[in-house]
């Protein structure tokens, strides 16, 4: 046992409310590491896909076809007007029943979409619905005349969307996008509800094994999320600075 571990064993002895069991117990330690791993994975995947959903939705919202716009509107309404936790349960328990299964080991039939997969899908759609609105407001802030200039230079709708509107839109909506993505990272804890072994799930497992570790796991949760969110806020800020255009307002 290292000095570091020894220190926390003694701390737990002298102060039973501060049992940092995950610092000296191999099982608990690996639980926490898995939890952090899943939380980060969930965050990265849902951020990525929710931005994709937002971009595709915003693109579809600009469609001339009324039906397409109605679909996007319906999607936004559904995901914004219902709690993300209920959405998660719905996706996993209701839709999960209907997904095909496969058998990797030849014995056990498992659904092709795991609970982790459902969490990624559900949370990406949830945050994506907000991203659609965020991107839409950014797109609307790009003057029509800029779009017409692109059009008159022969850009088609897709080219002008990707080459001209998005780069400007992105600069405008970065702060609100940042807010939404930070909220998304915090919402990943709700994947606990469908037993995704992310940080909250693991912390509760640790606490179940050692009820004296409550303060220690709570503190850990706060610190890990504080750091992840801090990292996102910092990179967003750096990006904003990096994208700043000389002599341009936004």
């Amino acid at each position, binding site marked *: 046992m290292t000095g570091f571990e020894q220190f926390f064993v003694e701390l737990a002895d002298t102060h039973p409310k501060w049992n940092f069991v995950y610092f000296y117990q191999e099982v608990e330690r690996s639980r926490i590491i898995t939890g952090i791993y899943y939380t980060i994975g969930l965050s990265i995947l849902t951020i990525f896909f929710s931005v994709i959903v937002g971009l595709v939705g915003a693109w579809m919202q600009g469609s001339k076809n009324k039906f397409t716009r109605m679909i996007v509107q319906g999607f936004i309404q559904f995901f914004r007007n219902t709690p993300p936790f209920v959405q998660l349960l719905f996706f996993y328990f209701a839709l999960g029943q209907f997904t095909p299964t496969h058998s990797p080991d030849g014995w056990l039939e498992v659904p092709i979409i795991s609970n982790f997969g459902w969490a990624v899908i559900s949370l990406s759609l949830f945050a994506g619905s907000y991203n659609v609105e965020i991107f839409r407001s950014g797109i609307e802030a790009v003057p029509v*005349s*800029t779009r*017409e200039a692109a059009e*008159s*230079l*022969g850009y088609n709708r897709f*080219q002008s969307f990707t080459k001209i509107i998005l780069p400007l839109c992105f600069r405008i909506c970065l702060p609100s996008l940042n807010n939404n993505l930070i909220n998304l990272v915090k919402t990943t804890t709700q994947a606990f509800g469908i037993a995704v072994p992310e940080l909250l799930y693991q912390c509760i497992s640790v606490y179940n094994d050692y009820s004296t570790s409550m303060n220690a796991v709570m503190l850990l949760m706060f610190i890990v999320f504080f750091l992840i969110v801090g990292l996102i806020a910092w990179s967003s800020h750096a990006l904003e600075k990096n994208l700043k255009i000389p*002599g*341009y307002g936004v």
Partner: protein
Amino acid sequence: MNTWTEKEPILSIKDVHKSFGELEVLKGVTFDVMKGEVICIIGPSGSGKSTLIRCVNALNDIQSGSIKVEGVEVNDPKLDKLALRRKVGMVFQQYNLFPHKTAIQNIMMAPIQVLNQDPKEVEERAHSLIKKVRLEGKENSFPGELSGGQQQRIAIARSLAMEPNIMLFDEITAALDPETVKEVLVTIKDLAQDGMTCCLVTHEMGFAKEIADHIYFTDRGIIVEHGPPKTFFTEAKDPRTKEFLSQIL
């Protein structure tokens, strides 16, 4: 099959009607422009000048009539817009440069991204265009770092980079102060001398007089009167033209 030859009008507008909902903005406009000609469209605010030249570029659609650019009908649902816009360049009153790109990038973007031309070649062309609009040294400035007149000249260069056969200018000096107006007008004059076909909407009567081969006066969606500048300003017959000219000259 397009059988257009240079002896026919490069731009032919026939009985064009255009409405925005209930409001009829163009009520049967007809005129032709020959290759190399410079025409000026003048008229009071709201008379449909901008609408007219936007229709030529298919930025607005028309309800009836015909607009032909090099013999190709613009008022056609199957119109190849890219082909049209390669031929027709447009410059706007508010410059409309892309604010996130430098001057030279603004010029190079469309030929590279839309026409897939070789970036090296395009860059060379962009440099010579910058020279042409007399903005050497401003290649790497962003639009926000340029004056209005400089931005407008980059916008002209940006259109020219597509190597169009016709240039449309919509009140491109209206947002500029008198000193800067001059530098932009010089650029246009150079262009006209090079033989570019130009359609200008303008309020600069002196300039129109000097540069135009033909002047069209529009009011409430029709061409009230037209003629070469020599006679247009002195021998206007219609009372509306007279009134407009008396106010502006």
